């Protein structure tokens, strides 16, 4: 993500004054933006980060899809090659089989990489949680100062447990499965 992309999103979503640098936010100087406007700017920037990372992750997914498609094409070509009279030598057939096997390994790794892209959604939701808390602080300050500029817009609900969620698949699976099983047992008893 570069600054022009962030600026474009900010210009579209929130026409607010330019942000004070983080150091200024931590130690406000005379003439700096009021605290609640800084807060709104930070929220907008976090929103921009999530939007841009989602878009960039989809670009990576596009490339993985392309690799997957190219491997598929290669496999089809090699299958055709195996039927060729000149490829009937046992040594050639063994070599072709090795190439096919390597192609399958590449395909499997591409799928694994696609699955690992779930990190983007996990990270996005962690940022959503931070935004949620910033908005609470923002609204508290607005109430305190009586400016009437409360948070606007409906946002996604946030996960209460996202702060402890890892990015490795199935870390919570056993726990979730046991809760589901316990719930179903309790229903069958009723």
């Amino acid at each position: 993500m570069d600054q022009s992309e962030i600026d474009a999103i900010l210009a579209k979503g929130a026409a607010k004054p330019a942000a004070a640098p983080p150091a200024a936010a931590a130690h406000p100087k005379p003439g700096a933006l009021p605290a609640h406007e800084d807060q709104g700017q930070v929220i907008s920037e976090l929103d921009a980060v999530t939007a841009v990372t989602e878009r960039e992750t989809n670009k990576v997914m596009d490339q993985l899809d392309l690799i997957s498609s190219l491997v598929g094409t290669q496999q089809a070509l090699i299958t055709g090659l195996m039927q060729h009279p000149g490829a009937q030598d046992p040594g050639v057939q063994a070599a072709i089989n090795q190439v096919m096997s390597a192609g399958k390994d590449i395909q499997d790794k591409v799928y694994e990489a696609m699955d690992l892209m779930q990190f983007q959604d996990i990270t996005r939701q962690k940022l959503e949680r931070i935004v949620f808390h910033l908005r609470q602080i923002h609204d508290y300050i607005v109430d305190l100062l009586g400016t009437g500029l409360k948070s606007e817009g409906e946002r996604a609900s946030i996960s209460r447990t996202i702060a402890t969620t890892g990015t490795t698949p199935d870390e919570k699976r056993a726990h979730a499965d046991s809760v589901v099983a316990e719930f179903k047992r309790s229903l069958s008893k009723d």
Partner: protein
Amino acid sequence: MKILIVDDSSTMRRIIINTLSRIGYTDVVEGEHGKAGLEKLGQGGVEMIITDWNMPEMDGLEFVQAVRAQNASIPILMVTTNAAKEDIVQALQAGVNNYVVKPFTPDTLKEKIESLLG
């Protein structure tokens, strides 16, 4: 079999669609939040739902409740980052048939789908 995927993350929808295609389910429709999910469901033909919880407009819990008000039998799998016991119980009480915590492996998704359809 047509499967409806409801998730506000386009990346996550893509990952789920990709996983489904690897296990043989290619007929998929998508919604980016609960309201969009209800619209897709209303168009007919959906035989299973995979939904996120945390979404704008209408979250996954409200969506499940709305679906159950009109369809008691369609299998619903919730795939979410919400991992607290009370969340899981709340989702099951709302009418979810099974629950997967993100991030998941393709094998987990496959197992849950097959158990719901089995």
